[in-house]
């Protein structure tokens, strides 16, 4: 096991396209690091550079205490799991698992010991004599994992390993990946475009966009304290609601005004987010997570101090345990490049609804006991302690420690 350090790593393709732009990333020994971002953000390129399958154009990559910039993949002592599994179709499962060990001239007894251990761990024992063509998708995926495990490498690299599985299998494989990592404790770099996978698997998550590193943090921190509009919009599903708003301070304390609503901003927020007071009387972008809403009727008990927001439900998505309420607010959609980029990357369920004039569509996640129907009026409450504020020009989160230095 080893740590992996990327220092000012660049990747410039022929033609001058910068796929990866001066990335600095330190992956600790035994850590599960997820690289996430929309397609074309450079996450796979970054992974392939760590693997040695792509040259790096600048900077250095350090695995353990070795600079591996020009080492071929086989000398880096890392194993990779590919999106399409890349099993050798003419070899049995057993031969697939043993191939890498045989090439390393490992004694036969040791090979069969490791292969059997891995097969047992992954529940593949009865399939050892089969060829990949005779396996189901989930079994092939496990063989691909097994091929990495038997090598006992310094680090695992995984390139969207679950994306070819059906939804249910993906959830169970996600869980077994988690247990596997806890058991083996091997440094893992995992690439995905699925933010749910990123949130559930990662010790830390690294969000990339257009080859630029946006934020590296624990999943919860990414969700609670996104560093900019892009991260805020990309992480979380349904994604964060944005609106152009104005921060004002009146007699009853500060409040944020948008689309005819006026939400009070608690005094603590100003201490939590240093620099926010400089925006008083100015425009900024307000962000509210759908999960910070609730139905006023249901939430009456615990919503002390929460602001109320009467709206008309346009569409409701009932998910069983909760309902997504889509409603229009009387303000134009935020056209910051970061929110647009994040929306493009996310699942475009909202895009299907024709927007009327200069209204924007928001989503609130309310308790399923609300029983709200499309077309009904509903009074929502907002947890004003979890409001997010972004600078309208730079798109950076106001008061985020990473932005304070700048």
């Amino acid at each position, binding site marked *: 096991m080893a740590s992996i350090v990327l220092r000012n790593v660049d990747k410039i393709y022929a033609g001058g396209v910068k796929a990866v732009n001066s990335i600095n990333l330190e992956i600790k020994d035994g850590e599960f690091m997820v690289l996430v971002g929309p397609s074309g953000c450079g996450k796979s390129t970054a992974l392939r550079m760590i693997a040695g399958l792509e040259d790096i154009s600048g900077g250095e990559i350090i695995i353990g205490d070795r600079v591996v910039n020009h080492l*071929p993949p086989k000398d880096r002592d890392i194993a*990779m799991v*590919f999106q399409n599994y890349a099993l*050798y179709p003419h070899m049995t499962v057993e031969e697939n698992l043993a*191939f*890498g060990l045989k*090439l*390393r001239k490992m004694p036969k007894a040791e090979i069969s010991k490791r292969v059997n251990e891995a097969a047992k761990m992954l529940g593949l024992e009865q399939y050892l004599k089969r060829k990949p063509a005779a396996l189901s998708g989930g079994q092939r995926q496990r063989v691909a994992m097994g091929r990495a495990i038997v*090598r006992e490498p310094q680090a695992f690299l995984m390139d969207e390993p679950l994306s070819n599985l059906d939804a249910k299998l993906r959830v169970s494989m996600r869980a077994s990946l988690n247990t596997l990592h806890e058991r083996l404790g091997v440094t893992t770099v995992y690439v995905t475009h699925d933010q749910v996978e990123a949130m559930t698997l990662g010790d830390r998550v690294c969000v990339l966009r257009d080859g630029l590193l946006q934020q590296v943090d624990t999943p919860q921190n990414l969700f609670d304290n996104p560093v900019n509009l892009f991260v805020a919009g990309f992480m979380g599903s349904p994604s964060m609601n944005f609106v152009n708003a104005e921060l004002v301070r009146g007699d009853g304390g500060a409040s944020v005004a948008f689309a005819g609503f006026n939400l009070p901003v608690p005094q603590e927020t100003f201490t939590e987010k240093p620099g926010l007071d400089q925006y008083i009387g100015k425009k900024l972008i307000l962000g509210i997570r759908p999960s910070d809403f609730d139905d006023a009727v249901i939430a009456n008990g615990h919503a002390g101090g929460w602001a109320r927001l009467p709206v008309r439900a346009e569409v409701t998505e009932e998910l069983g345990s909760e309902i997504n309420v889509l409603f229009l607010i009387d303000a134009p959609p935020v056209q910051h490049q970061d929110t647009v980029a994040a929306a493009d990357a996310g699942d475009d369920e909202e895009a299907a609804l024709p927007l009327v004039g200069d209204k924007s569509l928001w989503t609130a996640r309310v308790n399923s006991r609300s029983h709200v129907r499309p077309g009904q009026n509903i009074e929502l409450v907002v947890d004003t302690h979890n409001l997010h504020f972004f600078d309208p020009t730079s798109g950076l989160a106001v008061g985020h420690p990473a932005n304070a230095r700048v």
Partner: protein
Amino acid sequence: MTTSTIAGAPRRGVLSRVTDRIGGGVIQALMVLIGVFWLVPTLGLFVVSIREEAANNSTGWWTAFTKPAEFTLKSYGDLLATGFTSSFWNTVAITVPATILVIGIAAMAAYAFAWMDFPGRDPLFLVVVGLLVVPIQIALIPIAKLYGALGIFGSIAGVVLFHVAFGLPFAIFLLRNFFVGIPASLLEAARMDGASEWRIFSTVVFPLAKPAIASLGIFQFLWVWNDLLVALVFADSDNQPMTKALQSQMRQFGTNIDILAPGAFLSLIIPLVLFFAFQRYFVQGMMAGSVK
């Protein structure tokens, strides 16, 4: 305006509807008939080769079935007396190396063209493909001169080299197009597993390309086995293959059928055996590259 209603089974091809109407049995019978018809010349050749010379000269081979007494292996004996065995071994000595060399060299070249990065790779490949259209006839005289200078004119090595040179463009073209169809991640996985370029070629790509290699092998084998032109030009009488030996048995005024028939039939058997042995791969290989 007319309105149409949709009813009945979905529309299918004309052929499949025709088959349904007359029934699969009739079609199959027709296929068998065509197959038999195609086999008649081969059968005739075989019958001629086992009849007495006199019988062949007086009646057609199809009358032989009523008089089985005419059958004899004497023609085969006569054939062997002409020294045909040595020309058979010459054919083998030309065909086997010419086939193996083409497969070996072409597979390595195709791997490089498909998977290795080197300057000028694509233009070079275009040149190789361009060589496909060069007819061998234009090379006969220059190569004959070259062989003369090298001192291999008339030898088996010269014939083999000529076949290899003119077999390679097609072989490289075929295999390269098969190789690029192999998913890149498979090679990358092998690279991560610690395989060298040679290892990837020999343990991953080559086994996967078996169908393509088998069909290429059959093609090349048949071309060389049946070749007459190259042998006529480059092989002297000590090194002549069967085709040239049979050709030299032709007379200006007479067929000499008792020697030609058994010789031609013997030269047929080996390719037939080979084809049936690899027939499964051959069909697969024909599909390879056409549909990915």
